[in-house]
């Protein structure tokens, strides 16, 4: 008898507990989705970064992929991150843990610039 009561109570607690956790997670997800852009990936093509400017949430990882016929690099203007030379189809990723505005450019073709804004 005792065991049964305990079992039901326990399950009930669990259910309530998980409902609460689920509610909190989806709330956090919803908040994240509002800051998260459609893509955390930036394409390099025709000597340009697309999108040229993005806004992301802290903790997001951005991946650059080079679709040009020539190598490019991704170098932050204040030396916070720097990729090796990326040949066609090579990628470079960086996780932005701190809020701020990060201007970057291609050190091989410096006329190419972009910006990541982290909230």
């Amino acid at each position, binding site marked *: 008898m005792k065991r049964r009561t305990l079992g039901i109570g326990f399950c009930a607690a669990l259910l309530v507990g998980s409902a609460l956790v689920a509610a909190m997670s989806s709330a956090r997800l919803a908040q994240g989705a509002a800051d998260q852009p459609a893509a955390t990936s930036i394409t390099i093509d025709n000597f340009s970064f697309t999108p040229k400017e993005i806004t992301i949430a802290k903790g997001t990882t951005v991946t650059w992929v080079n679709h040009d016929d020539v190598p490019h690099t991704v170098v932050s203007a204040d030396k916070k991150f720097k990729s090796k*030379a990326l040949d066609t189809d090579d990628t470079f990723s960086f996780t932005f843990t701190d809020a701020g505005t990060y201007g970057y450019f291609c050190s091989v073709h410096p006329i190419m610039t972009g910006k990541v804004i982290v909230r």
Partner: protein
Amino acid sequence: MEDTIKENLNPDGIDRRGFLKCMAWAGTGTLCVMQGGVLKSFAFSGTNERDASSIVKGDFAFAQISDSHIGFNKAANPDVTATLREAIAKLNALPRRPEFVLHTGDLTQLSKDDEFDALDQSLKAVRTDRIFYVPGEHDVLNDNGAQYRERYGKDAKGDGWHSFDYKGVHFVGLVNVMNLKAGGLGSLGQEQLKWLESDVKGLKHSTPVVVFAHIPLWAVYPEWGWGTDDSEQALSYLKGFGSVTVLNGHIHQVMQKVEGNVTFHAAMSTAFPQPAPGQGPSPGPMKVPDDKLRSVLGITNVDFVRGKHTLAVVDSSLQGA
């Protein structure tokens, strides 16, 4: 091509319309020779080369090749080693053997060991005494040019700049592909500019000067990065010199500009063409029909005629003999 341009001297000695017509032909195998301001042209084919040598007399000749991009293998040219070898055959067939060759950069595509090795292997076939180099942005990836300097810049200073004298002409190799700033163009930097100023200070103004560097030292098309931020300062040290010739690469097409006593010249690539300024989505490799490729790749021959203030700069494509 049988057409010839009639000489038509203006007070400044340069036939402007003929010059422009000539430049339109450059790259189809036509020789445009400017000797002392007088423009002559004749078709550059196997049979006419003997005529060319008898007309183009100079104290010495040297050649310029550029943008070999060894390692590149995309649509614009899947075999850049083959076209480089054709360019070398062209160099070896010039009416007058070049006493040395200048390579104005982008030797390789990705600064890789095996790419530099392959280039060196191909260049062994050039019949000349020496090859001088300046790096392109493709040659200094990942290691700030350490590999490039190890191979080609042992006698050079700083990032690889150097100068030498040859039969009374002063040659200066500059590096404008290092420490580039966001949003900027090519850059020489203060250390190199200081060196350049002292390098040319002691020269008599009658000494002809040839400057070679990868990115153009004039504003060809800044929107595409085709220019050098601090070239004005460099050229200011050469004010007053009677004859200054600037040889560049990077843009993969022939382009020339004359400003007073300075002649600027950019050469074709031996690997692939790029669009004319603004005439394409980007300054990247441009695919042309296979049977047209060799007409847009080529070499440059330069004749120095003692006593003439202008060097005869002649471009010829890989098309034809």
